[in-house]
């Protein structure tokens, strides 16, 4: 949570280094996920957010204590950035009791309510109305909290998106809607699913404030998120934030991406990797970088070890938690 922040001032070098550390941790974590999935250790199917780490970190670092998020099918980054320990995330992917959802959820259903993660959602757009409702609860109780929904460009085509933004604006609830615009919905490129280029137009239908930001620039994301959160928190209405970003991996782990030119991926990896961009900008000494990398790698590796040593649920536990 952003406790260090001095209002109105851009992120300091120290803070940017922290952002880098966290983005790198998410990256190494997700690379492990890919590796362990390929090794056949992870059940189900998984989506990594490699390339989109700056959005998760930039937004979550701008949150304050008590703020809540809803995530998507591509949830590891948001979850880690919101404060859940990688061990618990990895244990969940292994279906263990020590997992953040105790093995009931899996990769697409990471919840950590204590830390304000109201749940990842495997239904595109499925988390948005809940965020409006959470924000409404905050408003009704007069609490200075904000509810934030993450979702992709593809999610802006579903009715749930429309109804949620409309309701949020109508009721002026403290919500922020963060669109991670990677210009793909699964295999479908934006030109096949979006009739517009400029995604901020989506907010005009509701008269909602919108902001566009370079989602590969964590500082820019952080600043935009702070502004958006402040507006929402101050009761000046919800905000739609479009973070243009890139998906450097497949849609799901193992996706051969037949629908996408190889060069596009290579080019994006070279020029738009948010971690490389920040590293360059910080002019980090090689040894500082390597230390950071070793640390991130170690945490990621530890998480695998932690998860593997975890406990399998008992089969009959499946009948618990159906009702409160």
């Amino acid at each position, binding site marked *: 949570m952003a406790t260090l922040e001095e209002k109105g001032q851009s992120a300091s070098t120290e803070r940017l280094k922290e952002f880098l550390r966290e983005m790198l941790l998410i990256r190494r974590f997700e690379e492990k996920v890919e590796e362990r999935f390929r090794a056949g250790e992870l059940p189900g199917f998984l989506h990594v957010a490699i390339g989109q780490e700056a959005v998760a970190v930039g937004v979550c670092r701008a949150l304050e204590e008590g703020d809540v998020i809803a995530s998507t099918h591509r949830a590891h980054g948001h979850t880690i950035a919101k404060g859940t320990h990688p061990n618990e995330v990895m244990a969940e992917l292994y279906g263990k009791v020590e997992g953040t959802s105790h093995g009931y959820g899996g990769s697409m259903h990471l919840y950590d309510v204590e830390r304000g993660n109201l749940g990842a959602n495997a239904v595109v757009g499925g988390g948005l109305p809940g965020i409006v*409702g959470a924000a409404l609860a905050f408003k009704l109780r007069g609490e200075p909290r904000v509810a934030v929904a993450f979702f992709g460009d593809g999610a802006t085509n579903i009715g*749930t998106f429309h*109804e949620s933004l409309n309701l949020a604006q109508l009721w002026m609830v403290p919500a922020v809607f963060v669109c991670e615009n990677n210009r793909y919905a699964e295999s479908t490129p934006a030109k096949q699913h979006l009739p517009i280029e400029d995604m901020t137009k989506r907010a005009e239908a509701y008269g909602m404030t919108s902001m566009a930001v370079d989602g590969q620039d964590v500082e820019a994301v952080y600043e935009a998120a702070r502004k958006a959160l402040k507006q929402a928190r101050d009761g000046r209405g919800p905000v739609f934030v479009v973070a243009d970003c890139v998906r450097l991996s497949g849609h799901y782990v193992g996706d051969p991406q037949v629908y996408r030119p190889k060069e596009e991926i290579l080019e994006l990896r070279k020029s738009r990797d948010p971690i490389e961009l920040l590293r360059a900008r910080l002019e980090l000494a090689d040894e500082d970088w390597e230390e950071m990398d070793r640390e991130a790698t170690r945490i990621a590796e530890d998480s695998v070890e932690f998860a593997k040593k975890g406990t399998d649920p008992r089969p009959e536990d499946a009948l618990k938690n159906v009702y409160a």
Partner: protein
Amino acid sequence: MPALTYREAIRDAMSEAMRRDDDVFVMGEDIAEMGGSMGVTQGMLDEFGPDRVRNTPISEMAIVGAGIGAAVSGMRPIVEVMYQDFMTLAMEQLVQQAAKHRFMSGGQIKVPLTIRTQGGAGWSPGAQHAQQLEAWFLHVPGIKVVFASTPADARGLLWSSIYDDNPVVFFEHRTLYNLKGDVPAEIDGIELGRARVHREGEDVTIVATGRLVHEALKAAEEAEQDGISVEVVDPRTLLPLDEETIVASVRKTSRCVVAHEAVVRMGFGAEVAAIVQHQAFDYLDAPVERVGAKFAPIPFAPVMEEYVIPHAEDVLAAVRRTMGKD
């Protein structure tokens, strides 16, 4: 014992909960100034103000979903979905979200949300405003389903639904709103999952819900003229279901008719028949008979509508069939 209409009983439960508890609020289409399309929330805006009696846009998905989010965040929202036919617009939020949040989070979350909705044919609302869909929700672990048939049950069950920590879909029947009946002086919950035996009998058990409870009671009286003694059981909560009461009744009577307004095929009666034939196999003297709407959407023209939906005489005919008297 004061007497209230079914409509007033529902309003009373909501209002009393809102008086006692700030976390309770209601939202839905046209529930504020207009008091709801069935008049159930009439006067509540005046008492509780627009923050707690919230008119919404026509956005069934979002208002149910906002109810979920508010519930997860510590409120006890009551969402009115004007007609249960419009639940078709909110199924994702109900089935994928409300019903599963607690489970998928491994028990971290609870969703104390009540969805009130109503419907029912018999007054020519046409095919898109008249079907009964309660059966769908019984197939969804994580949801509770209530269907009240009297003012007292409506008030007590709604009270329990509001204070239940799970999502409850609360079905009201359009034709019952003006039904008057005694209610206890003090408002109190009725445990979800307990049937009410409306009438005891020896020969046949009728398990009936909603409007059909009243048709069953009529049928029971007529059957009595024929010397057939009928027990009428209203499960009231369809999920969880009071199988015990139903099965005990059938073991006693050895015959069972199940009656609802919904289409027979894959309706609640199928589940009751499946349970009863299983739990009372050795007791049954006749197959379980099902009474419900014929297999068609609800037609507009009154003569056709009348034909499609079930009435007391259909229940009576089923009773007679179980007695070998048709």
